[in-house]
């Protein structure tokens, strides 16, 4: 538990009245865009007795502490897309709800402090409250399954309910007049499916490419984060599909997803080729002068994870982390050094001339740890195990199907 996020600290921050007496203008150039100006007009028309000073502030796209949440939204012209990545912490106390929200990117980055729906303070800050790691899953679940309240479930997953389990009345709870279901996190494939369905795939690809990634290199976490920026919350008001879509907003990545130094990463051209369909593979050196292309996926900088069991390369196993390098004029990287072992050990077996298929299938089924990563090509079977050595029983079986077999051997130290 992060002790800094407690009700006492939230209330204390709120009661500091940040920015009291100051006005905070929206300055990102979008403040007087027609959609936002209309929002302002509609608010003021619906609230004719708004104080003169507040009215003037709203018309000039500026907010000030003391406004209500609605007045602040009108003043800054906050549309759904402006607050999509605004998250905060909320505490409900006997004297009201206190909350602060960060991530208002409106020229400068602001945090807003509230008691109930009154703005107590506004502060310019780069601090960001990160979304829950399954926020995208929750957002899509709300829309598709009608579940709106989410609680920790088993194995770090969530359960969702259509009612607030902490505030439900006795009858509802004891007569089970509610739905509560497990909510599994979305895979990148499911996220992309949703992006296709909502016609956001092009924006997604563009956003990934701006960040130096492609669909084949992006991790599920990053995929979810980028999609979170693009997929609107359900029940968004007045979405006029005939209107010209606004220019995409630049996506600000949290620190843990940022590359430390772009110069340490692969060359730009490689990203472009990967985006265009170049397989993510690297050249590894087999015995003699022979080379082999092995599939990898990017982790960070020039560090990649091996995702395929090599056929003839020794001393490299799936899940190992390796550093790759690029030679001048070449797009396909080559292996430089091993960085971290993934824990798998690879066995290469030369199969008998006329092997019995049933036996090979049974052997793979019973003795190969990761059935995704075995390969059988050119009379050779390579596979990985998670134990230090093959079990005696497995060795016996291997004796039936192979002429000879060796550990390749992937237990050695990594390279400095």
């Amino acid at each position: 538990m992060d002790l800094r996020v407690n009700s006492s600290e939230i209330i204390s921050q709120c009661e500091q009245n940040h920015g009291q007496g100051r006005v905070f203008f929206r300055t990102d150039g979008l403040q007087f865009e027609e959609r936002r100006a209309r929002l302002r007009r509609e608010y003021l028309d619906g609230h004719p007795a708004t104080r003169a000073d507040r009215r003037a502030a709203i018309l000039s796209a500026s907010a000030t502490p003391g406004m209500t949440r609605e007045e602040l939204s009108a003043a800054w012209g906050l549309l759904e897309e402006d607050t999509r990545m605004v998250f905060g912490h909320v505490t409900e106390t006997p004297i009201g709800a206190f909350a602060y929200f960060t991530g208002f990117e409106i020229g400068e980055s602001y945090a807003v402090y509230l008691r109930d729906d009154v703005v107590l303070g506004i502060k310019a800050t780069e601090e960001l409250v990160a979304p829950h790691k399954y926020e995208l899953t929750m957002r899509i679940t709300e829309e598709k399954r009608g579940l709106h309240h989410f609680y920790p479930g088993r194995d770090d997953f969530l359960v969702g309910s259509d009612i607030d389990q902490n505030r439900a009345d006795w009858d509802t709870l004891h007569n089970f007049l509610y739905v509560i279901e497990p909510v599994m996190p979305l895979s990148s494939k499911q996220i992309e499916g949703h992006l296709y369905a909502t016609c956001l795939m092009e924006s997604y690809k563009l956003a990934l490419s701006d960040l130096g990634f492609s669909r084949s290199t992006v991790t599920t976490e990053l995929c979810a984060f980028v999609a979170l920026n693009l997929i609107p919350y359900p029940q968004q008001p007045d979405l006029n599909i005939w209107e010209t879509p606004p220019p995409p907003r630049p996506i600000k990545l949290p620190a843990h997803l940022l590359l430390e130094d772009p110069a340490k990463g692969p060359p730009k051209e490689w990203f472009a080729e990967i985006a265009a369909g170049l397989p993510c593979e690297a050249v590894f050196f087999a015995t003699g002068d022979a080379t082999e292309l092995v599939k990898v996926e990017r982790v960070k900088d020039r560090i990649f994870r091996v995702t395929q069991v090599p056929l003839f390369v020794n001393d490299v196993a799936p899940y190992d982390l390796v550093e790759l390098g690029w030679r001048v004029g070449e797009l396909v990287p080559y292996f430089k050094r091993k960085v971290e072992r993934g824990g798998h050990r690879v066995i290469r077996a030369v199969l008998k001339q006329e092997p019995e298929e049933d036996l090979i299938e049974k052997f793979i089924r019973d003795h190969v740890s990761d059935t995704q990563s075995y390969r059988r090509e050119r009379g050779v079977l390579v596979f990985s195990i998670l134990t230090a050595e093959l079990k005696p029983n497995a060795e016996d079986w291997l004796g039936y199907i192979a002429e000879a077999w060796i550990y390749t051997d992937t237990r050695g130290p990594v390279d400095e």
Partner: protein
Amino acid sequence: MNEMNPDSIENRYLERLAAVEFTSGAVNRPVIERAVENHLRQLELSPRPIRFAKDGIDAQERVARDHESAQKEEVDAALSSLCRGSIDKDRDFRWQRPRDEALATGRARILNAARGAVCWHSVRWSIPWSRYWPGRTGDRGHSTNPEYYWRAGFDALEYAVRAHAERELRRTQSSKIISETNEHVWVPFVDAFAAGLWMFWINSMEVIALPRPALKLNGEQIHSEVGPAITWPGSDEQHFFLNDVHVPKALVETPASQLDPRGIPREQNTGVRREIVRKIGIERICNELGAEVVDKQGDYELLLLDLADGRRRPFLKMKNPSIGIYHIEGVAPECQTVAEALAWRNQSDLPPTVLT
């Protein structure tokens, strides 16, 4: 301690509890340490250092950091084997009545009100802006419930009053020895409470002691019109109260002339709303919100108030007979008479319309 003479001052627990001073925040650490050490010895727990928290936040941070080493269950188990027959006593009026009397004398109600303000509340993490509804914000996969930490602690007053309850039980019970033994378990906490101890937590490595805060009282109510009503000497932690109602800092520190009456209907807590009305004054509120009386019945008036949102909404103005002040409360827009407003307020079949 004079065990033989129940009338000696040391054994007149009620008088000692009544004499406890609540306003200075003074703490006599050696007395508290002695009482806690004695308690550990009786429970057959190893001695451990006693750390004094400087305020409620400090205590909760310390407890939260080490909550896995809290020994609440072990202590409760040791106590129930030490105090024989205590389980039945909870249902015995001969024990319960003096206990309640001692709690009232020790001003447990005031301390509980203070605890409600000091105790951390649950926090819902990473709430999207569009999902924030004051008073109704739902969980979003991650929330904390720190009240758990308070429940892991022990209340010095709760222990102190048991000494008096055991004493009174001894007067009426045949098995005097049992009650006398039990009484001796709790007596040191009469001293500790008088010396300023409020709560303590027994962890495997240490005891965390939270002294009582300095309270500003008006009779039997926590109340301060100038500054915080709950503080600890040398600490920044502050809590504000008006007439026993926990209120936001701004309400106490803002002069009445600068408070905006239009904020009243938005206030969700009825106690806080009453204090705003009391501070601003009902006359000014009625003037500034352009009140129009549409019906009157005894001390009740049905007003139409202009809340600056383009509509005039009905509010019931009424006098609280017990404290003699007026307050106003929003009623359903369809109410046109005091009788209808009262019926709605008393949960008639009119729908509970959202008022603000």
